[in-house]
């Protein structure tokens, strides 16, 4: 499918109608009204999260959820981070934060490296059965984890990795592999094969071509893959819950334990502060990376 390049290209340069009209006809006004209403729909939930996290409990009980906090009160924010009780432990959501960091960093490095090698092989070193292998991988992108979870527990337990950090990282890498491979394969498929052939003629071997030629050329897709995998593994809940073990529960799992706890009166400001803290890493990645995030969606969408 074409369109990866078009995703990010702006129409204005090539559009036959010339420069953007600046005058506001009723139709143009309607367009902006629609976009504005949509923006409200998307932003209000995020706004109330930020606002609630900075309010005091009396203010939450007393006033509208949509109103801004009357004073910026950091108490809930600090509580959520370092003293809120999750289960029996009262050390805040930061425990989950560090667990997530420990899970996400190695799984991003390994998954991207593996995806790059796989994509390179599937593009330039197509052995017999490579297509079948790739088809099976693509199929894997769609399948619900529930079908793999139980036997995978048995396997990781036998390897002595169940409930440990390396175990949950391994599972993340296994499930990230198809999408990573797909991204790199599609990227390498756009490179001219002559580059590869010329390197072969010059006597470069498999790894030499990979490290000296392909990797330097693959920088854009490496960025896309890192952003994708960092966001996906940070946002994971199910794999962390099942494979990380009690000691290493990721931030999402800790957050859910905190918010859904049924004991005592709920401090909604603490709940929302913890939610915001959990959301912050992917949000920062999103706003810093800008178009690369959207490019990942286009590259990750399964194509023929």
């Amino acid at each position, binding site marked *: *499918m074409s*369109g*990866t390049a*078009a*995703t990010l290209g702006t129409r204005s340069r*090539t*559009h*036959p109608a010339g420069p*953007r*009209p600046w005058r506001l006809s009723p139709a*143009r006004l309607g*367009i902006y009204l629609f976009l504005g209403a*949509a*923006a409200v*729909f*998307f932003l*209000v*939930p*995020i706004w109330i*999260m930020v606002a*609630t996290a900075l309010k005091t409990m009396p203010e939450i009980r007393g006033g*509208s*959820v949509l109103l801004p906090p009357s004073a910026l009160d950091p108490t809930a924010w600090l509580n959520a981070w370092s003293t809120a009780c999750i289960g029996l432990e009262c050390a805040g959501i930061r425990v989950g934060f560090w667990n997530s960091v420990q899970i996400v960093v190695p799984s991003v490095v390994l998954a991207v490296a*593996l995806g790059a090698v*796989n994509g390179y*092989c599937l593009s330039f070193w197509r*052995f017999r059965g490579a297509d079948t*292998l790739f088809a099976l991988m693509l199929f*894997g992108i*769609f399948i*619900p984890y*529930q*079908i*793999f979870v*139980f036997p*995978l527990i*048995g396997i990781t337990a036998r390897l002595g990795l169940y409930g440990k950090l390396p175990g949950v990282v391994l599972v993340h890498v296994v499930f990230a*592999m198809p999408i990573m*491979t797909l991204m790199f394969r599609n990227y390498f498929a756009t490179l001219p094969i002559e580059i590869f052939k010329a390197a072969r003629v010059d006597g470069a071997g*498999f790894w030499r071509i990979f490290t000296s030629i392909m990797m330097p050329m693959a920088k854009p897709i490496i960025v896309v893959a890192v952003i994708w995998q960092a966001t996906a593994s*940070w*946002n994971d*809940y*199910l794999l962390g819950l*099942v494979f990380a073990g009690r000691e290493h529960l990721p931030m*999402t*799992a800790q*957050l*859910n334990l905190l*918010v859904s706890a049924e004991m005592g009166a709920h401090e909604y400001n603490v709940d929302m502060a913890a939610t915001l803290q*959990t*959301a912050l890493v992917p*949000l920062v*990645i999103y706003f810093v990376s*800008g178009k690369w995030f959207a490019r990942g*969606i*286009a590259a990750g*969408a399964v*194509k*023929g």
Partner: protein
Amino acid sequence: MCHISSAIEQMIATTNRHFSLRRWLAPITAMAPAILAVLVVYVGCLLWTVFVSFTDSRSIPDLAWSGFGQWTRLYADYRWRTAMGHMFVFGAFYIVGCLVLGYLLAVFVDQRVRGEDFWRTVFLCPHALSFIVTGELWKWYLDPEFGLQRSVRDLGWTGFTFDWIADRHMALYTIVIAGIWQSVGVVMVLMLAGLRAIDEDIWKVTRVDGIPPWRVYTSVVPPMVVPSILTSVALLGAGAVKNYDLVIAMTDGGPGIATDVPSKFVMEYLFERSNIGLAAAGATTMLLTTIAVAAPLVAWQWWQRRRRARGPA
């Protein structure tokens, strides 16, 4: 003479074989982790679970064949059938909602508006958040006591009621709304890619013929963004079957079993109610549903490839 040439041929053949082994050793070693993962996890674990659905496994796997007992038990279970129903209702509203709203957003963003990057960034923003965060957010936002309902009442509309999240007939639709909020940006991105891949000449022709824009976008454009639509349907459909985190965070299946879904049912029978066989039958159902959802995309791509192979029509 003949003897010598055949010896040379054999020599060349041997070197070739030798060379080719050396040539293929590195790629195959490099692919070994992937091959292992596919065989052990994507094929092995999957077949294991499918097989276990035909056994009497309770808390520990028992690999003796016992026929369709778990399947009949599963489909006789009211809770499972309810959960399946919820999955289909959620899926239908989620997919249609995302497609319609995503298409609208893409079309409006594509009107050469000012600040296009800004709008796109806003609409895609929720997709950076996890379903857990999305669920916690919307649970708070829709809280009947402190959330949106109270805010609107405070504005003076005292009779305003929006307590769907606590209403067992409507709770599922709050999950649909939150799901659409999180995912529609992706559809917008895919649709926008589709719109921008349309030939410039088509736009010119519609302009010259004086077809009103709304007609262009309802009749002319949709058939041309079929690839985007199919990709979206496959992604969203698979997402609807997988839907677990969002339900857990937002309603935890409640009130009662009003928002129970198959993924939650399977997880419970795997880990809390220890009936692995029954859970496996449930998981296999989820797998089959996913295949059915992804099938149109695969079929369409296959058809396109065949058409391309035959040459331009």
